């Protein structure tokens, strides 16, 4: 049942993905920018610019360019960056794992702190703890991320030198041999503990900065759904029947309450992939958000399209995975 449902959903993704490429193609071509002339430098003659346009294949009519792009996508050729001449796929292989690492760590932190905080808030509703958790959670969201990041960097990294300020690893120690491109994971796979600790320390500040926003939403969402579940009859019955409060909460209440929270987490993964660019800029984290934004600034079409597609695809896949999880959390859910 589940497998057929997932397959059908996967097929249904195709039009969405084509829609994304089409929309991105249109919006990245309507700006009055001229990335080729920019790449050719201030002194290029018209003839030299034309020459470069032929090199990149952007001298053709737009609809042909789009069709060529789609054909390339299927053949594993995602085009080239006009600024750096590098294949987009190679760029994405570099930037995307960095983003996955950062967003993954941020979500992990947010769940680790947010879920217990939400549960406690719900159990001690309107108590001091609840109000404090609310203010702290909401206050975290209310700080612009780049500002929070800069403040953390100036104090923790430069003032007290507790953490590295920028980058993903210390060049003195070297970069862990690439397997997945997720450095912390690579270090673990290599069994290189020095590199693991080093990359983890580099990850700490940006991940924390990025976690603050989802932390707030996850806390609030967990609290709200816990409250709802706790008012249900079966929880009251379970309590009345003398089950230990801890068992009631973890085994029955929390499991059911996690459905909206899981949805929230899924949505956040997609948003953070591109939305993390401010934090990436502060910590020089070479992620896909920064790659997308910088490409957008130069109207570098194919990197924009490639990264948008990858982000969109990740978003859809993560949300599909979330739907599949619903079944585990609540066996009553059927996939029709």
């Amino acid at each position, binding site marked *: 049942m589940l497998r057929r449902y997932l397959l059908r959903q996967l097929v249904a993704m195709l*039009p*969405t993905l084509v*829609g*994304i490429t089409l*929309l*991105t193609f249109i*919006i*990245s071509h*309507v*700006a*009055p*920018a001229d990335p080729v002339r920019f790449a050719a430098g201030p002194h290029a003659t018209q003839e030299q610019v034309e020459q470069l346009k032929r090199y990149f294949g952007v001298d053709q009519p737009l609809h042909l360019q789009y069709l060529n792009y789609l054909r390339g996508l299927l053949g594993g050729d995602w085009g080239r960056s006009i600024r750096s001449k590098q294949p987009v796929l190679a760029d994405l292989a570099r930037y995307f794992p960095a983003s996955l690492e950062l967003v993954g760590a941020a979500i992990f932190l947010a769940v680790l702190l947010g879920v217990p905080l939400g549960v406690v808030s719900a159990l001690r*509703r*309107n108590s001091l703890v609840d*109000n404090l958790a*609310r*203010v702290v959670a*909401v*206050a975290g*969201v*209310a*700080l*612009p*991320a*780049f*500002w929070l990041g*800069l*403040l953390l960097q*100036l104090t923790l990294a430069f003032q007290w030198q507790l953490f590295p300020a920028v980058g993903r690893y210390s060049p003195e120690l070297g970069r862990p041999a690439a397997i997945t491109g997720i450095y912390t994971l690579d270090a673990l796979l290599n069994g290189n503990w020095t590199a693991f600790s080093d990359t983890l320390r580099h990850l700490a500040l940006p991940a924390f900065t990025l976690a603050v926003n989802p932390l707030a939403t996850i806390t*609030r969402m967990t609290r*709200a759904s816990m*409250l*709802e579940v*706790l*008012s249900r009859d079966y929880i009251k019955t379970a309590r009345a029947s003398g089950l230990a409060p801890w068992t009631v909460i973890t085994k029955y209440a929390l499991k059911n309450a996690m459905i909206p929270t899981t949805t929230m987490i899924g949505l956040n993964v*997609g*948003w953070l*992939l*591109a*939305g993390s*660019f*401010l934090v990436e800029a502060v910590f020089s984290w070479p992620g896909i*958000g920064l790659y*997308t*934004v910088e490409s*957008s*600034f130069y*109207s570098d079409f194919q990197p*924009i399209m490639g990264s*948008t597609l990858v*982000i*969109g*695809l990740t*978003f*859809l896949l993560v949300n599909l995975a979330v739907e599949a999880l619903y079944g585990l959390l609540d066996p009553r859910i059927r996939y029709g």
Partner: protein
Amino acid sequence: MAETRLPQDLALAAAARAERARGARVAWSLLAASPTTLLGLGLVLLLILTALLAPFIAPYPDDATKPVLHIRDRLKPPSWAHPFGTDELGKDILSRVVFGARVTIEIVLRVVGLAMLIGVPLGAMAGFLGGWVSTVLLRLTDVFLALPGLVLSIAIVMLLGPSLSHAMLALALVWWPGYARLTQGQVLSLKQEGFVEAARCVGVSPSRIIFDHILRNAVTPLIVKASLDMGYAILAAAGLGYIGLGAQPPTPEWGVMISKGRNYLADQWWYTVFPGLAIFLSVLGFNLLGDGFRDMLDPNAHGR
């Protein structure tokens, strides 16, 4: 309009009104009981008051509204003359923060208002009509939700040229699917409710059903979402300002002020701290208010 209403319809409307009035009373008592919600309300009121009274509060209104320079006073620390210090062109930061409240309110209202204006009718239509309309809308919102909002905003601003109103338009275009989805979901569930069925049975026209019965009842979650989004709109505009695509000079927009001030973070702390504080308090206000609303209006959450 009233005379064309059927008696049954009037009775239903009256019942709904009574329900709402009771709701309002309950809401107020709940509000009074929740200190954080009150705090949120207070902060939002403070923002509105500052915006209204800006010309009377700001010591140097020209610094916020006119192209002026005081190069000799640049980057002066807080003093009696300039309680929040001055920026890199010598402008009074207090005056700019105070006038920034007006810009912030404009952002908040226009982004959320426009997103709702697009999203709510589309969502209501899709939810009510169902069928292919709903499928098309679902696919469209899918594309918009999966497309990084930032890419879309930057592209729109690059196309139209950077300005605050274009940034607001871009944010609204990115955010409307949220409202469409929410409204559609509400309409779908309300369609099954007894009072809607009743209205349909007595022959009330579909458009009246949507507007009089369904939307009025779907408004609660919309208000909650809107008040939370108002906070996020301030931050999103600040994010666009950070990359130079938001408000243009000399508009005193807080996000732009702190993104410029970040270059002076180490030695001229006052440049970012005061606009940062203003953003912080406003977003905090909208969020606490929205959060409080959600708590109050959520029927499951009343009592334990």
